């Protein structure tokens, strides 16, 4: 008893240490503070650590395996596998459609499930989409919680799973309990069913994201921060079912099209090179001096 008490105390102390070490200290500078609040990532040091681990694992195992799957398995087969996986999700999606007060979408999910499970050969062919244009949509417990008013709280990088937040992470756990297909697997088996389904789902998702993720990594400077923003935006879009939320700010054309900071410079230089007239000669890229890749009015 005494021993276990000591042990749990030690565990608690360790947990507290990890959490404190994982916490970022909010900056005092107002601009830095605003950026900190916008990132909404108080556990950033810890999250970045898990991101590095996930990234290493991904580059070593998951991405190569997903790549082999993509090249080794013909596209029609991969599409059939995805159709089947999506069909297995239909009962869960139906529950969430209803829980979110979307009877029309629930109807679509129900019709899709009925058609694809039968005529679609157990979900292998998405006949509902191909014949009737009843398109697939996804839902999960994280989205339902959001519709019910739960915020994301803060950003969370889950080991193995990747970008998330407390709400969506909780959603994953809820879904594992309420998913009708998971329950059926547990009652009737086969025992390898849930595992096979999870592996295939991960494989399908990763293989389809290869190009997009490579691209984000290639074009970004801070891959972690870019993914954080993309994940957050994607979730908002999913929660709103693709409808514009309309409260995000966006770039706008600067009032007069000139660059305010070049005030007083010769007028030629005030024409932004990005908007030079169509008739301007094509800039040469290859022969440009080292620090400039194009010729532009100086």
């Amino acid at each position, binding site marked *: 008893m005494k021993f276990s008490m000591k042990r749990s105390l030690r565990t608690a102390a360790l947990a507290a240490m990890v959490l404190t070490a994982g916490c970022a200290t909010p900056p005092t500078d107002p601009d830095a503070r605003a950026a900190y609040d916008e990132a909404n990532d108080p556990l950033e040091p810890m999250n970045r650590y898990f991101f590095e681990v996930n990234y290493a694992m991904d580059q070593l195992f998951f991405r190569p395996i997903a790549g082999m799957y993509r090249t080794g398995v013909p596209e029609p087969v991969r599409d059939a596998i995805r159709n089947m996986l999506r069909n297995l999700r239909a009962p869960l999606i139906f529950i969430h459609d209803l829980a979110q007060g979307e009877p029309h979408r629930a109807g679509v999910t129900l019709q899709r499930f009925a058609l694809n499970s039968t005529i679609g050969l157990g979900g292998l062919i998405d006949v509902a989409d191909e014949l009737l244009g009843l398109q697939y949509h996804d839902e999960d417990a994280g989205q339902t919680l959001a519709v019910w008013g739960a915020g994301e709280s803060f950003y969370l990088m889950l080991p193995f799973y990747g970008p998330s937040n407390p709400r969506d992470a909780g959603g994953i756990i809820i879904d594992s309990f309420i998913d009708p297909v998971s329950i059926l697997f547990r009652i009737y088996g086969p025992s390898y069913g849930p595992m096979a389904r999870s592996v295939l789902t991960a494989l399908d998702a990763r293989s389809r994201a290869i190009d997009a993720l490579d691209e984000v990594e290639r074009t970004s*400077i*801070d891959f972690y921060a870019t993914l954080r923003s993309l994940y957050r935006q994607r979730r908002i879009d999913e929660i709103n079912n693709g409808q514009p939320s309309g409260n995000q700010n966006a*770039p706008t054309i600067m009032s007069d099209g000139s660059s305010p900071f070049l005030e007083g410079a*010769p007028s030629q230089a005030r024409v932004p090179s990005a908007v030079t007239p169509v008739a301007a000669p094509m800039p040469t890229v290859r022969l440009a001096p080292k620090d400039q890749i194009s010729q532009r009015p100086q």
Partner: protein
Amino acid sequence: MLLTRRMAGRALIATAAAASMLLALPGSIGPAMAAPADEAKAFLQELADRTIATLNQKELSQPQRIDAFRSLFSQGFDVRSIGQFVAGRSWTKASEPQKVAYLQAFEDVTILTWALRFDQYAGEKLTIDRTREDGKAILLESQIVRPGKDSIRVDWRVEKGPNGWKILDIVASGTSLAIAQRADYTAVIQQNNGEFDGLIRALRDKRQKLRQQAKLEN
């Protein structure tokens, strides 16, 4: 001397601008009364068509393609306004030389990034489904159909400025590129103890890497 020359230059421009406005005014009340949304749509469709036409020119070398893309890109996008937005809060605190250096690097990186993706656009088709207004901007909701892949939903944020219609943001499946990029750059500045120069350095490194990828280094 320099000052007077500059002032004379400005006076000339002002006169020319006034003259062109006087000349243009009566005409603009006439037949050219297309709705802004239609104008925006025509602008994007035309840009897409020209991009496809350039893509179909198989005889172009890599540097020529990048040139062609740079030109298309310059006509289509307001890179400076985008650059200013994605710099985030740091923009107001940056010095003039920093701003110039940043915009230069940003523009180069942006254009090289897109130009290197050029091959991927082959066979893609753009259809504009809907338009909606958002303040000064018009959002063109489109589908991009890609051979052998799922089609993607892309919204184009366009605005009419003194240099005509310009694209300001691309929103793919609800994710805004400008917002993601601003998050990226803000983090880079943060990681560099809030120094704007850290971002400029990072962009210059990126430019160097992209140039090597494009094999433009000699």
